[in-house]
């Protein structure tokens, strides 16, 4: 993705959420912490990740602020997705994957021995590039995480399901067919269902790995609006190749780059800094489409 969409990005900066929300009857979100505040929630200290002996990224030191929407941009292979998977320790699932350095979520040391991974992942939801609803009904998809955490009262689960589906703007579309297989939904609907599935446990952090890139432009727009609306309610960390999108929705951004096949964090800061007054030559080159 080059910088060809930069002009377009200027036009719609911050506008798209508001402009389309008139047509999207979003339900009200549960009131939570105040909007984006410069209070670090996730802190990485010299974090490095290796697949076997091959490093994916090295020496990332960075803070991600609570309630903010933070975008990770950069070329393929620069370790953005690998960084994301550290945050909920999905790295445990990859054989031969080692993480060195420190990563904390609030007071919790993510990679400590005694950390309960299941509890961690409950606090940190994740959305994947390709929508991955389970091959169950829409209702079962949302019920599964609730049941897992002991909420089995039918009234309460139904209420939570309705509320969450409202939050992602899916309720109207599916309210009378909750028991059809989730795989029958369209791509965009599936992705919103996956977001709902992650939201239903009220996590603190949401990780998104290019959530719009496998969708058609129309669904992509709807999902993007939804993500923009999550800002302030959740701490969102999003990997995207779409610079215009990052500029539209994010509060903070960071640029990852590949040096000799190893990913590195080049620059991070408020979106305005990254896109308007980049401090690093590479950033300037990347966002204007000269490199990357």
């Amino acid at each position: 993705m080059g910088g060809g969409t930069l002009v377009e990005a200027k036009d719609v900066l911050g506008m798209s959420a508001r402009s389309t929300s008139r047509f999207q009857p979003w339900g009200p979100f549960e009131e939570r912490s105040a909007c984006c505040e410069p209070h670090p929630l996730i802190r990485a200290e010299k974090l490095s990740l290796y697949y076997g002996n091959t490093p994916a990224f090295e020496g990332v030191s960075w803070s991600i602020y609570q309630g903010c929407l933070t975008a990770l941009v950069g070329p393929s292979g620069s370790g953005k997705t690998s960084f994301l998977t550290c945050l909920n320790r999905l790295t445990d699932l990859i054989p031969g994957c080692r993480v060195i350095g420190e990563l904390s979520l609030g007071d919790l040391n993510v990679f400590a021995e005694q950390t309960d991974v299941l509890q961690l992942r409950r606090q940190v939801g994740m959305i994947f590039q390709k929508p991955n609803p389970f091959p169950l009904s829409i209702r079962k998809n949302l019920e599964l995480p609730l049941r897992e955490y002991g909420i089995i009262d039918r009234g309460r689960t139904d209420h939570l399901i309705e509320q969450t589906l409202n939050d992602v703007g899916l309720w109207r579309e599916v309210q009378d067919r909750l028991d059809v297989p989730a795989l029958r939904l369209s791509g965009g609907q599936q992705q919103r269902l996956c977001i709902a599935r992650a939201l239903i446990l009220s996590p603190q952090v949401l990780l998104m790995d290019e959530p719009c890139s496998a969708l058609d432009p129309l669904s992509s727009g709807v999902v993007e609006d939804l993500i923009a609306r999550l800002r302030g309610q959740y701490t969102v960390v999003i990997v995207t190749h779409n610079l215009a999108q990052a500029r539209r929705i994010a509060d903070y951004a960071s640029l990852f780059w590949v040096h000799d096949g190893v990913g590195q964090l080049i620059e991070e800061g408020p979106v305005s800094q990254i896109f308007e007054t980049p401090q690093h030559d590479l950033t300037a080159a990347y966002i204007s489409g000269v490199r990357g």
Partner: protein
Amino acid sequence: MILLPNITLSPSRVDQLLVWILQGLAAFAGILVLLIVGFLMLEAFPAVRQIGFLSFFSDASWHPVEGFYNVMAMVWGSLLAMLGAVLLATPLGICSAVFCHFYAPTWFVEPYRKLIELLAGIPSVVYGLWGLVVLVPLIGQLHPPGPSLLAGISILTIMILPTIALMADASLAKVPSVYLRGAIALGLSRWTTIRCIIIPAATSGLSTGIILGIGRAIGETMAMLMVCGNVVQVPTNLFDPMRTLTANIALEMAYAVEDHRAALFFTGFLLLGVVIVMVLAVDYIKQRHTYA
């Protein structure tokens, strides 16, 4: 934030327990082989100690009642029957697979393959029955007595042919189609393509099939018992009756005691040893050769 109800066993602990149980079951399945090897060794040990390892190969004959334990006649019986069958079944099996892939009309391939699959599953007693009732009298008319090495080789060939044909079929299917397209583009004739490109590319799969066929031929008991005549002698021509190692065990186990019994377990142990060597060979071939 949804509060967790009190669970006495946390999900992580349940998971740990689950993995232990599953690992235990897998270990049990793996240990079974050791158990079998161990038991055969334990039962065969008295024979090796009392009779002496060498007497199995140097005694005057196999007359357990008089204390003679030469198994060589049966080893030759097993080997000759196996060799004959493999020499016949290998070219036939490979040709059958080639026929299936390159010559047979498409409507014919599926039924043909299904038939071979079915034949691979037909019990050895049924082949033995046919051999005993039809083939043996036929050979008897040609050259008395009838039950003979030839009958054994014929039945074994029919038995291992489907195994080899199916394995060859599968390995031909695995040859990357680019090889075939490349050959066609060069204008090579069908036979040249098969002989010079397809067969060499499928060698590892073909040899695996042959080794499996050898294993099955060596281990076959019932059919050999039924058609070979079971006379303990090294056959000097195709029409001599003979006895295989496996048939010997099945025949004499009923009344064998002490050293005799231990000697039979020793022959079982020999068979197992041969099979283990073959499986390791197959594993080695598979390790060494894969299409990327």
